[in-house]
């Protein structure tokens, strides 16, 4: 455009408290940006819904398939991991417990929000596979997290080993292989 067209006042100032207005044309890059976002938005919507038939469910399924290929399923692996009461496993388990469990089960493991781990009551079974199962799947209705995907099978086996050894120390009773003795519900921290 010619320079003459630029910076022409409209002459409305007397109706705008003395504020003059130019009527300059819209900057081309601004118009281009506006058209581009409109075209992009329409094309994106058409592509997402009608061409690629994209959806959150589809994206999730693809990500899960990727994850399955990269890392074997945790639940099966957890079941396969054996609880070994070696000193190394017990020591590693202590670290896992301190980092994750004490806020509910107490620093002394005698309960708090969650039940006492150092008594003879095993609400969900006291055998190693029961303990691993309880930790892995959690007890969502009581507020215990599903730790399987968070800790992984190895750490769960370690923390189970630590719980078993500490429990043995405290009660003098080997918990291994013994199901719950449900009579005593008066102990601190045991939900009734």
């Amino acid at each position, binding site marked *: 455009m010619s320079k003459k067209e630029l910076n022409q006042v409209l002459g409305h100032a007397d109706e705008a408290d003395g504020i*003059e207005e130019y009527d300059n044309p819209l900057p081309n890059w*601004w118009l281009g940006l506006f058209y581009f976002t409109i075209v992009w938005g329409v094309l994106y919507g058409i592509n997402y*819904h009608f061409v690629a038939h994209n959806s959150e469910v589809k994206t999730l399924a693809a990500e899960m398939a990727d994850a399955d290929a990269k890392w074997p399923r945790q639940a099966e692996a957890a079941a396969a991991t054996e609880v070994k009461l070696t000193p190394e496993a017990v020591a590693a388990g202590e670290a896992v417990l301190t980092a994750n469990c004490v806020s509910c089960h107490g620093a002394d493991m005698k309960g708090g929000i969650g039940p006492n781990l150092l008594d003879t009551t095993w609400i969900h079974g006291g055998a190693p596979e029961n303990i691993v199962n309880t930790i892995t799947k959690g007890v969502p209705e009581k507020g215990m997290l599903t730790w399987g*995907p968070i800790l992984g099978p190895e750490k769960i086996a370690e923390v189970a080993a630590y719980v078993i050894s500490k429990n043995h120390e405290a009660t003098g009773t080997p918990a291994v292989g013994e199901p719950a003795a449900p009579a005593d519900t008066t102990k601190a921290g045991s939900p009734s």
Partner: protein
Amino acid sequence: MQYTAGTSVAGAARVEGVKYDEDIVKMFLIASVTWAVVGLLVGVIIALQLAWWPANLGLPWTTFGRLRPLHTNAVIFAFGGNIVFTGMYHSMQRLLKTRMWSDTLSRIHFWGWQLIIVSAAVTLPLGLTQAKEYAELIWPIDIAITLIWVVMAVNFFGTLAIRKVEHLYVAIWFYMSFVLVIAVLHITNSMAMPATLTRSYPVYAGLTDALVQWWYGHNAVGFFLTTPFLGLMYYYLPRISGRPVFSYRLSIIHFWALVFLYIWAGPHHLLYSALPEWAQTLGMIFSVMLIAPSWGGMLNGLLTLRGAWDRVRTDPILKFLVVAVSFYGMSTFEGPMMSIRAVNLLSHYTNWTIGHVHSGALGWNGMISFAMIYWLVPELWKRPLAHPTWPTAHFWLATIGIVLYTVSMWAAGLTEGLMWRAFDDSGLLKYPNFVDIVNQLHPFYWLRLVGGLMFLTGAIMMAINVFQTISRPSSSTAAAA
């Protein structure tokens, strides 16, 4: 045609036998300065609580959860609302060459609005809330807001009806969109069935409630913090700089594009939720289309300052205006980016959102308000500022404060967003314990507090300056003015 700045009638208290109501402008200005300090102070307190939990004081009334809505309501509706009303009552009388239609309605509006703010300041710490973000106030207060809004709207349109000019200046269109759309948004979102005096149930259920809430929530940003403030920009920026508005054409096109597109963008708050995906897509693409219409406002602001840039170096009021318009452009680019699905996947629920909101609220709304206040006080009270050098110090405190605030929240947001989604070699979450992530954010919370404190300090300096200016006798300075 060569432009000559300023005519003798511009800004005068009296034109063609009309005497403007200056008192109502002064009342709203004093209220907005007062609430600015209160709202920012509560913001600094809750920032401290996030960095140092004992600041919650162990009392239910002073915990973060109750003070946070007090902060948002105080800065948006008390500080923001009062400064918009200040500018509206000041500029529309001059633009329409008439006194307000009814002084009584103006005063009912003023006192009603302050009463609503006080009732919010009482009920929110008591834990009385509707639990809708930016619409927390309980139903009796919602009804009061509706009534006072109608009073204001009747006065607004009454004044339009008795105007002495044909042409409606662009600022008036922006004010009009504010008056109309906020009424519709507030009434629709606050529909509820009262159960007791302090409790009610929303008429919408589940997902519908969420969608109505974010249609409201996003447009509270659009029509409470954007369009009326653009109206203020279109009046005060050319008046203060003495430069003609860059393009009338651009103002028409970006106005209509902005109000049409904004109203659709709410669903971007519900990406990756149970909201049907076609609605999520609409929210996202309308947000992206908003970039250019938003930038139209920024362009018209910055290009209006052509020929006044030499004065920006020395005039703190122009500095405030330039930074305000620049932050407006920055945050209206950031917002659409965050509404894109892939970006939202990282940014949603993180502190990045908090940083984004504050670059808009502190940078755009705050800075343009400060410019207006520093320009209006000497105009209205007809005397120079008590401390003419303080505005420059305020400007630097506020600017550096905003930068610290936004940068720390960007860093915090990216940190937590990336930590949430990180996996280790065996496919497990790398940071399964939430507290590990919180510990990473801790230094950024302190840095944010420093930024907020600087911004608050500037605002307190402004309040002292304003109150000392208006309380000292005018006789000695009136002759000079």
